[in-house]
């Protein structure tokens, strides 16, 4: 019984430390949108406080009498584990799963392999296009801004000749001509990875084969309208492509 209480305390402390560690290393940006980082701080702190209180309780209480305020115990005794009983073994094992995944599986943000069959979009229908994006200078727009701009108009010619400077990962599937096309893609995340949506801008270059799936690249060029997958769409004709490090924040936040 005391073993389980100790394990419970240890799990709380470790989970709390893990959360704070992801915040310090910046790994948190693989998981949730930046504006919710404070929630992870809060969760980390609460877990550390809970763990500390559990440890203090274990150290100060006589082993023979681990029960506290009898009022609560009698009130809840027959309501399924809502007492100050130690967590059951199953609960301890289950709550260790997130910790194990966090520590044992190398942290990686969602990338090209996370995009399923119909999983990438070049135009937004749900969140719809956004004309605000036109107030951003073309060279300053990111992948999301461009996709919004494309969705806000029915005339793809509008973008012909406009310059762009984009960072993203390389994505291609069977629709792409491997010799000359790929997509510079990003995931957008508004809350956490559960709502991640992949967006991309089609790139045209003579040596597309040089750039492997999932590699982070910076593409500079100008838009032209081309046929892609049976539709006329703006395509970024590359003037330069260079490899680049994955940004600190791999996702874009709408």
């Amino acid at each position, binding site marked *: 019984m005391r073993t389980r209480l100790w394990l419970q305390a240890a799990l709380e402390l470790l989970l709390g430390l893990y959360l704070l560690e992801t915040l310090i290393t910046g790994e*948190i940006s693989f998981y949730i949108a930046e504006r919710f980082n404070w929630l992870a701080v*809060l969760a980390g702190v609460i877990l550390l406080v809970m763990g500390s209180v559990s440890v203090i309780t274990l150290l100060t209480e006589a082993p023979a009498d681990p029960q506290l*305020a009898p009022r609560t115990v009698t009130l809840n005794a027959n309501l399924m584990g*809502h007492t100050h009983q130690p967590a059951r073994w199953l609960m301890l094992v289950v*709550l260790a799963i997130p910790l194990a995944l966090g520590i044992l599986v190398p942290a990686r943000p969602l990338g090209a392999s996370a995009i399923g069959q119909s999983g990438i979009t070049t135009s937004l229908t749900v969140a719809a296009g956004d004309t605000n994006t036109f107030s951003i200078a073309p060279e300053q727009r990111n992948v999301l801004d461009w996709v919004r701009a494309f969705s806000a108009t029915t005339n793809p010619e509008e973008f012909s000749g406009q310059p762009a400077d984009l960072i993203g990962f390389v994505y291609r599937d069977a629709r792409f001509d491997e010799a000359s096309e790929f997509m510079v893609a990003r995931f957008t995340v508004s*809350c956490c990875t*559960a*709502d991640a949506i992949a967006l991309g801008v089609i790139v045209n270059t003579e040596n597309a084969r040089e750039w492997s799936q999932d590699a982070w690249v910076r593409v500079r060029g100008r838009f032209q309208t081309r046929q892609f997958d049976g539709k006329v769409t703006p395509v970024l004709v590359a003037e330069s492509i260079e490899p680049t490090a994955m940004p600190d924040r791999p996702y874009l936040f709408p």
Partner: protein
Amino acid sequence: MAHRRDTIAPIIQCERAVRVDISTQLSLFSTRFLGIFIEAVSFLLLGTLVSGLIEVFIRKEDVARMMPKNPFAAIVAGSFLGFLFPVCECGVVPVTRRLYQKGLPVAVGVAFLLAAPVMNPIVLASTYAAFGFGPVLVGRYVVTLIMALAVGFLFTLSRGPQQLLSVNALSTVGGAAGSLTPAPRIALIPGLMQAIRLASGEFFDMGRYLVFGTALAAGLQTFVAQEALRSVATQPVLSVVAMASLAFLLSVCSTTDAILALSFANPVNGFTTGSIITFLSFGPMVDIKSTLMYLGVFKPKIVLYMVILPFLMSILIGVFLNLNVRF
């Protein structure tokens, strides 16, 4: 040539999708799992902390006395009581039982029990974090209120508490001897320690449902072909029934269910908005865990009503929304 490429494209893509190796899949699963878990766990922790504080510091007899005398006004007040008493679905049952012991009318307690897990500032915050201010948030609150009020009013037609409540929830018989006398006030520091200990126990109790639910949501996105899921997700009726059943089975805490629902609402899966609203309003009222807990308060026949009425109502409303409202 172009034509031929079009026709073979889907086949090649399927092959490509399958070819993602195990370690990549595990890494994808882990990223999706931790995203949902980290976002949700803070709301769960806040929820357990608040219910621990309420358990220790708020005297239930004061609340029972504050309720309006008019039965209809009392039911309406009962539905909103959650904002004063931010308990999620697991915390609400012991609180309701204690309110019954203090003489709260059965119908008011039912309205409180059904509405409180959603009528809760932390749940409001997590729903807002996940969906922003829009049809899902508004729908969740309106539908929950409609269902809680309707079932509450239905219970005003019923007989006295002796026929409805299980023995240990009746004030005349009394569960524990100590619960009849007003609880003694507790000092601040020991009270805080006790609240944190209660919260910690509840975190482990509720956390396992969150882990299971998160694993399911992340697993569906990672291991199941999106096309198979979409064939259910986009049906106006089937999607609602599926999400209502899922809500019952998953038993995930109302403070975190919005974050989970997000992965089903993701356009990649494309569950209908009506089905998401059903998931978010029915789930907090009734699931495996709360059904078991209801049996500690109500007679079995009454529990059956409390499960079936919200189930049918929430499905009807969800289907109605899907067929008649453009979101």
